[in-house]
């Protein structure tokens, strides 16, 4: 499958950029004329990955978050990357309701939401090096 469009941005690890990132991804995806529900799902998944980079990856300290969006005929792939602390045990992190930060009132639902709202979710991470989330959403033909 050939990409038809691509963009990449980087921004500071600040919570105000959570809405910035999901709005940018949704605006880019709009070229494919998705439904409002599909756009809402995409925004939620992007928000989860960016929030994780800020809270867990960079532990609410300074850092840079990278977001790349690749459009295909009927789908979007979003890659969100941080160069933060990384995940020690990815299998454990994916379990719904698992969180390493219960004291911050986290529900441990981020990965479960990404998984259910997108069509695929891939997590690459190395302790001390960072985390790269790759997720794809297909848009129904209308």
């Amino acid at each position, binding site marked *: 499958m050939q990409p038809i469009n691509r963009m990449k941005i980087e921004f500071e690890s600040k919570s105000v950029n959570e809405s910035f990132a999901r709005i940018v991804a949704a605006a880019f995806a709009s070229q494919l004329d998705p439904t409002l529900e599909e756009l*809402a799902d995409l925004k939620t998944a992007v928000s989860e990955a960016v929030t994780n980079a800020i809270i867990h990856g960079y532990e609410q300290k300074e850092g840079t978050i990278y977001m790349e969006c690749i459009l295909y005929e009927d789908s979007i792939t979003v890659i969100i990357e941080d160069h933060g602390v990384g995940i020690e045990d990815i299998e454990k992190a994916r379990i719904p309701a698992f969180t390493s930060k219960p004291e911050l009132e986290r529900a441990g639902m981020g990965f479960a939401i990404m998984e259910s709202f997108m069509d695929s979710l891939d997590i690459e991470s190395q302790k001390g090096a960072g985390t790269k989330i790759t997720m794809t959403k297909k848009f129904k033909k209308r």
Partner: protein
Amino acid sequence: MLEITFKRQNRILTVYLKGELDHHAVLKVKETIDLQLVKSPVALLILDMSAVTFMDSSGVGLIVGRYNKMKSLGGSMKIANPGLNILKVLKMSGLSRLMEIS
């Protein structure tokens, strides 16, 4: 930007949220609600979400946190009027099994 307003009626506190409920917004909501809970006793906390246009797991964490707090105070909590996209996140997180959503 998220706007918070509230109404008190006897021991019922209704909190109206307007805007996007994400990690950036939850701290202020948490502080506002928790302050109201210590000001005078609340038996029922109602979170009115009719004007919430976006919510992710940060909102789920906020709701579970307030639910646990209400329970420890001997009270209860309800969610009112969530839109379809919000309801989807609430259901997938299992909150519809924890409290009444109407």
